[in-house]
């Protein structure tokens, strides 16, 4: 272990994830084994060099009767004696694991770490999953009223309509685009084309949201090996070197009513400002982004908060095709949470895996032509916590 505190360049040396989907017969252990082993093998780094594990998981106890997931990862992957840590902040649990790993390498605390996330959800009925998700809001001040997460973001959507304009049609376009992108992603859960009419006529969940405005319930795991640039090069991988040039962390009130704005998320702005400053870059420099589209309105707001578009104009960018796979600011080329899937604790890592895959030029049919700088945006709860990272290909 290197205890010298200084800033070093962090490299994503290895990536691995399961297919995202409904796997009622797969255990958490099984998914960790597959995704973790893939990431370690992809890195070319000796497993014995891994010094710590950071893993995101949201609802292991409630949905899978499994806690202490850090230690489970260690044992499953043969990392006995390696310190592990589980991080939980709702949907940004994976993003926090990524951030924790970045900080450990940057600071010199460790030279090689494994970061990841895992969630097993689909074996539970919808109302049980809905109840588990609701624990990420304020139990006393919000959930006790019968509010759900779709309900919370539906209130955001209605407020957005009030402050700007009704963007239901563009929200439907967000869903259609996500499904189109997922058709090209073999890792995606929902590889099925849909139309705007399908979205607008879907069963109502929480007005104005229908079923297709909501992200998926997903089983899945995703892992990455992080290390220094020097060690990554020594490992001799033929992959393009991908470095983390920015990593920001933002926070805001847990409750929706406690936020200064319901149509712009302060946690995103804070995290993005940090990440951009560290990277010496701005929104105009980002070639593609994976943003937290837990609901269709959220993608629109996120692209405004990240500075890609002016407030109130994110929907215009969707309508004119700017955020499509072949647009000038491709968003969620993977299919996003909406169609690739949302295995909550793993989502932040899975987003980064898509960016690394694109920067390496390995995204095959969904590869975007210009992929040198990518951004991930992972949001927790009703935008109470946010992690933004910027990754660059050498």
């Amino acid at each position, binding site marked *: 272990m290197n205890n010298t505190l200084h800033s070093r360049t962090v490299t994503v040396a290895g990536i691995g994830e399961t297919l995202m989907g409904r796997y009622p017969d797969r255990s958490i252990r099984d998914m960790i084994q597959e995704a973790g082993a893939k990431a370690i093998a992809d890195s070319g780094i000796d497993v014995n060099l891994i010094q710590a594990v950071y893993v995101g998981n949201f609802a292991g106890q409630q949905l899978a009767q499994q806690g202490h997931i850090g230690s489970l990862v260690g044992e499953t992957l043969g990392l006995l004696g390696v310190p592990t840590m589980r991080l939980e902040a709702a949907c940004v649990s994976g993003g926090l694991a990524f951030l924790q790993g970045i900080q450990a390498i940057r600071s010199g605390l460790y030279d090689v770490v494994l970061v990841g996330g895992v969630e097993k959800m689909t074996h539970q009925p919808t109302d049980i999953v809905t109840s588990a998700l609701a624990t990420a809001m*304020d139990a006393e001040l919000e959930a*006790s009223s*019968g*509010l*759900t997460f779709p*309900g919370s973001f539906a209130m955001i959507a209605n407020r957005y309509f009030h402050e700007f304009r009704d963007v239901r049609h563009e929200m439907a376009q967000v869903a259609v685009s996500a499904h189109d992108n997922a058709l090209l992603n073999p890792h995606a859960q929902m590889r099925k084309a849909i139309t705007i009419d399908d979205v607008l006529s879907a069963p109502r969940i929480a007005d104005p949201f229908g079923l297709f405005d909501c992200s998926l319930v997903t089983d899945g795991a995703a892992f990455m090996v992080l290390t220094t640039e020097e060690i990554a090069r020594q490992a001799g991988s033929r992959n393009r070197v991908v470095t983390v040039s920015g990593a920001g962390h933002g926070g805001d009130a847990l409750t929706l009513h406690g936020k200064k704005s319901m149509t712009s998320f302060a946690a995103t702005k804070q995290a993005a400002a940090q990440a951009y400053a560290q990277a010496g870059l701005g929104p105009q420099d980002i070639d593609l982004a994976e943003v937290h589209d837990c609901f269709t309105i959220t993608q629109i707001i996120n692209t405004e908060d990240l500075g890609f578009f002016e407030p109130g104009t994110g929907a215009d960018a969707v309508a004119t095709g700017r955020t499509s796979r072949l647009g000038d600011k491709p968003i969620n080329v993977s299919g996003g949470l909406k169609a690739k899937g949302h295995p909550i604790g793993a989502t932040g890592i899975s987003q980064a895996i898509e960016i690394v895959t694109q920067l390496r030029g390995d995204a095959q049919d969904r590869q975007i032509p210009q992929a040198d700088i990518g951004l991930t945006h992972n949001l927790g709860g009703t935008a109470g916590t946010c992690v933004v990272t910027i990754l660059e290909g050498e």
Partner: protein
Amino acid sequence: MSIPTLHTFTIIRTAPSLFREEAPYCVGIVKDGDQLTTSRIDGYREELRTVIGQRLIRLPASSPSGAQYSF
């Protein structure tokens, strides 16, 4: 005393297990004086037109649904 108004709202149609029998129901964020509060809004009916800025009635005590306000 100020009149509470609806700052934003939703109609919950897929509810958590504890509230499943009560759906559909309205949850809103209410502006009451300088305060914003999340609350169930009693008296929701499908034929009711619900709009942001709408005036609400403050209940003297929480209703059985926990609501502090009603239409």
